[in-house]
């Protein structure tokens, strides 16, 4: 029995109030409209504190308890309509060593002049606000006065490309739910493939990883068909390392120290059949701008986001927010 008639056309705000005033964890009914039905609520898939969007359905199962599912999304569109990402490639960074993935995402958004299409509103990230990080020099989406938040989505419809930029660390206790929400958003948006830009501690490389380039990739089973083209490009897959070096060389495991959410998200995407490619770089903390160019150029070899100049270089445009990486101006009295 479906009894969602009462919710035929609630405004998003009304649903939002329901979320706020209902204690989902104890599955007790607080909202007046539910109390009227006078049955116990069982709640599925609800993460409180997230904005709620359609569809919302309410049904009574055979045990006379109400089961309702609310499809939640953390993506909030800047426009009135939600943009379609069907068949798009999604690039997102992992908050990892030297912020290389995040800087690379910045470089792509800035160079391709991608307009912002929405915010990622979640309690899993540390809050942050600032003005448009890509303003100046014909930056994306207008001038300086555009409030930017801790996680935003940028899109380029000609290239069928979307970039999710994450600007602050994930809260330690919320890593799991953040991964879950990312995967559910990727699945529901219909991205054809997702590229996770990441980095890992250079000092943790084992003997086999020390050979050759510092760049590695990983593909989830759902994206195995990309393997051939990556092999043609001469890319190296991330080696599994021994779980117990010197004692037992047969047991290998995936080990991405300093990679933040990388390993967890990769394993989640493997089990959830999400086509994901991890592109990572071994590096150390410091001035990571050169590392960023290395990673972005490497990615460009595969995705062809930007044409190379006849001289063979790629004209990336550094965003205005990269200024003053080493602090403010120097007192003139020093000289």
């Amino acid at each position, binding site marked *: 029995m479906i009894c969602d008639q009462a919710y035929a056309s609630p405004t998003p*705000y009304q649903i*939002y*109030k329901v979320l*706020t005033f209902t204690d989902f*964890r104890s599955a007790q009914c607080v909202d007046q409209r539910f109390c009227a039905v006078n049955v116990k609520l069982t709640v599925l898939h609800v993460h409180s*504190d997230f904005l709620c969007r359609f569809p919302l359905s309410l049904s009574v199962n055979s045990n006379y308890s109400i089961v309702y599912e609310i499809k939640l999304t953390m993506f*909030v569109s*800047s426009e009135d309509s939600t943009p379609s990402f069907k068949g798009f490639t999604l690039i997102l960074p992992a*908050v*990892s*060593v030297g*912020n290389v993935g995040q800087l690379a995402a910045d470089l792509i958004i800035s160079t391709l002049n991608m307009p912002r299409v929405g*915010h990622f*509103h*979640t*309690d899993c990230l*540390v*809050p*942050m*606000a*600032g*003005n*448009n*990080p890509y*303003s*100046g020099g014909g930056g994306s989406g207008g001038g*300086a*006065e*555009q*409030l930017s*938040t*801790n996680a935003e989505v940028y899109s380029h419809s000609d290239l069928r490309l979307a970039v999710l930029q994450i600007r602050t*660390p994930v809260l330690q*206790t919320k*890593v*799991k739910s953040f991964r879950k929400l990312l995967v559910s958003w990727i699945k529901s948006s219909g991205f054809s493939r997702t590229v996770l830009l990441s980095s890992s*501690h250079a000092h943790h490389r084992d003997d086999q990883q020390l050979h050759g380039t510092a760049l590695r990739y990983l593909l989830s089973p759902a994206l195995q068909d990309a393997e051939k083209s990556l092999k043609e490009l001469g890319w190296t897959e991330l080696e599994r390392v021994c779980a117990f070096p010197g004692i037992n060389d047969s047991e290998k495991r995936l*080990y*991405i*120290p*300093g*990679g*933040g*959410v990388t*390993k*967890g998200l990769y394993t989640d995407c493997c089990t959830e059949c999400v086509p994901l490619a991890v592109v990572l770089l071994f590096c150390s*903390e*410091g001035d990571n701008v050169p590392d960023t160019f290395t990673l972005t150029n490497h990615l460009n070899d595969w995705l062809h986001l930007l044409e190379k100049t006849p001289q063979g270089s790629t004209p990336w445009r550094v965003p*205005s*927010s*990269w*200024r*003053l990486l*080493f*602090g*403010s*101006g*120097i*007192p*003139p009295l020093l000289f």
Partner: protein
Amino acid sequence: MATYFGEVLSVYSRAVEEDEYDDLEDENEEDVQIRREIEEKREVQVRWCPEVSKTLESSGELQCSNMIIAVGPSAAGFVSAYVLSAEGWTQVGWVSLWNERSRGSSRPDTVPQPGEPSFIIYQQNSSPSVLICQCTCYIAEDQLFQCAEKVLSSVQRRGLNVTVLSDSTLAEYKTPDYLNGSGTPFLRALKTSSYTGSMLCPLLEQPNIVTGLPAAVLSHCQVQRIPAVLFQCYTDVLHPDSVAMETYKPALSCLSTSVKLEACPSVEVLQKFTRISDAQSNLYT
């Protein structure tokens, strides 16, 4: 991190140890239980006085045209000295929260004492649709989102305008020019897309950002399309002082029809809010 000039900046490592995450993977039932209890303890609650609770119960939300949120010692001091002392304001609620640095949960049902770190909500007597939130307590990173959400969701969204006043040290401000103390304190602004008012001070330049409760409030307002503006005061004085407080005056001038400012608070009033910075005892006092 060492810079080109050799001095060491205190930048915390952004690298995340994977092992910590692995711990989360294989937690047992007891761990889950403990985690849930901690989460419950850290939950942010907005507590209203009986009259307001009654209104909330009947209509679901409070009527509010202007909400002023003051975060940090100078901003809170400004609100106390220039606004709350000027005309009739009633304390209508407070936010109770527990974390490592604000252990308010020993008595979550009692109103915070004057002078102790707190998050108090005031309502104007003459026009009850103006609310002031004064925050002087520490809010942990994981509580910021919840805090902004809980406070703003209890007021009506339609017709709401949010003004955030906050302070920061000058050391946090990045500029290509060298800053000496002469130009301080100064204001910088951030606004949400739906804010249409005129700007009274320059916008916060890149690569400067704001964090903490002001950022959480602005993010919430941006997503919910509530017009909101933030005035961040950069000062080189660690404690609230009358000069820093005065910089906020123009910020509230656009609200002059609904919020009356004390043009020139008396010395006694100002002293009350700046006294914390007085040396408690030294050779000369």
